[in-house]
């Protein structure tokens, strides 16, 4: 028997909405993860020893357990502690928290990469802490944090497939549904593998573009 993509493509609408859902949870989840991770890293830097130590625990726990287990715990275990979430918010929240633990480490390394003297120079000039973060620390760490951040975004994209297991209608779920109904499961998987791969490539291209734009001053030579 040969591959027949026509059956799958006839379900175009469902597929497109699945792809749209994947892109949505990926982009929103990654942005939220990066934002939470940045806030956590900033709290660790400026919050004193106790905050720093206290925040290592959840980071280590999240990085030390599988995403699928965390997802199931949140979605199926949440109601026991009064946290009943629908599939989509639960999936987004799980993805954001999971990614945030890694982004927190990425930004911590970023903060550490900036020579303390660069911050001291700004302090002497009267920059506020927020101005220092915004104008000195973030731009200086950008080159260092972009590659691991892109990497993390790619990992999170692939983890979104697991949201199908709590019935978020993203593209793995729609594709397997269509594939089973139409007896074209393998074709459906080939198709979404292609879409995942294109998205991964896209993330890589965007990352390299950002790096190139930012590295102007590093490459600049007299």
């Amino acid at each position, binding site marked *: 028997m040969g591959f027949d993509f026509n059956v799958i493509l006839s379900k175009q609408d469902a597929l497109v909405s699945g792809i749209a859902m994947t892109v949505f949870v990926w982009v929103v989840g990654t942005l939220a993860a990066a934002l939470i991770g940045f806030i956590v890293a900033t709290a660790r830097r400026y919050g004193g020893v106790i905050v720093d130590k206290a925040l290592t625990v959840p980071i280590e726990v999240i990085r030390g357990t599988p995403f699928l287990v965390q997802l199931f715990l949140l979605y199926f275990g949440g109601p026991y502690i009064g946290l009943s979430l629908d599939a989509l918010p639960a999936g987004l929240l799980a993805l954001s928290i999971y990614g945030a633990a890694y982004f927190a480490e990425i930004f911590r390394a970023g903060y550490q990469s900036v020579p303390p003297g660069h911050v001291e120079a700004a*302090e*002497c*000039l009267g920059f506020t802490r927020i101005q220092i973060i915004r104008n000195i620390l973030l731009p200086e760490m950008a080159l260092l944090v972009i590659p691991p951040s892109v990497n993390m975004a790619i990992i999170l994209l692939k983890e979104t497939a697991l949201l199908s297991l709590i019935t978020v209608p993203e593209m793995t779920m729609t594709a397997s549904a269509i594939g089973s109904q139409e007896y074209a499961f393998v074709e459906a998987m080939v198709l979404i593998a292609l879409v995942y791969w294109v998205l991964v490539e896209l993330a890589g291209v965007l990352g390299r573009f950002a790096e190139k734009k930012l590295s102007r001053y590093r490459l600049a030579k007299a």
Partner: protein
Amino acid sequence: MSDNAISVQHLVKRFGETTVLDDISLEIPRGQVSCLIGPSGSGKSTLLRCMAFLEEATDGSIFIEGAPLGFVYDGAGKRQRQSATDLRKVRSQIGMVFQQFNLWPHMTALGNVSAALRRVRRMSKAEAEEKAMVQLRKVGLENRAGHYPSQLSGGQQQRVAIARSLALEPKIMLFDEPTSALDPELTGEVLNVMRGLASEGMTMVVVTHEIGFAATVGNQISFLDQGKLLFTDAPSKVFAKPRHPRLEQFLDTYLDRGASTLV
């Protein structure tokens, strides 16, 4: 208010168990160049960094133009941290130049010099850059305004750093071994800029191993040894023989052989 730009009173700084500054009292006269010399590890940088509040003193006080820096005493005589706003205000009178320049690599020379005018003084970009150009011209680098630090020589980077500190028009400039990271042939251009500042009457505190500079430009020289301020005096007195035995030893040991006979 006294005539002194900086007054350091019974300053103590400990890192854990080690006392790095041991009961330092020092007056920095306004409009003069005060040099700090001494063996490495004697506490020169720490003292200078305390004057910029980059280090918090363990005890004692520092006054900048009569105003307390970093700590204030409440009604009950208890030492307390100054508010962040007050601290920024006192600090704004001070410019600091570091051994390692500490320019921001992602900004051009003009960007480095204009940054504080824009962020701290809230000037428009155009106005800040116009003012910044005045400072770059002063250090002879107006034609390098668009260069990033990585495109500049060490001497040029340090001159940009000086221009950056001058941008907010501080009353006092602190220098921590400004030429120590430079190749010998590049120290001259930086020292010349500093001489120019001195001749304009800028109050300067300079940690340096350039004994020639200290002797010729300095109005007073302080000698630190193992966290203690051994003496402060005019160069003519400091280098006149017979010298303080620790100074004699320092000139022999830490500087080029024969430096002690040069000055």
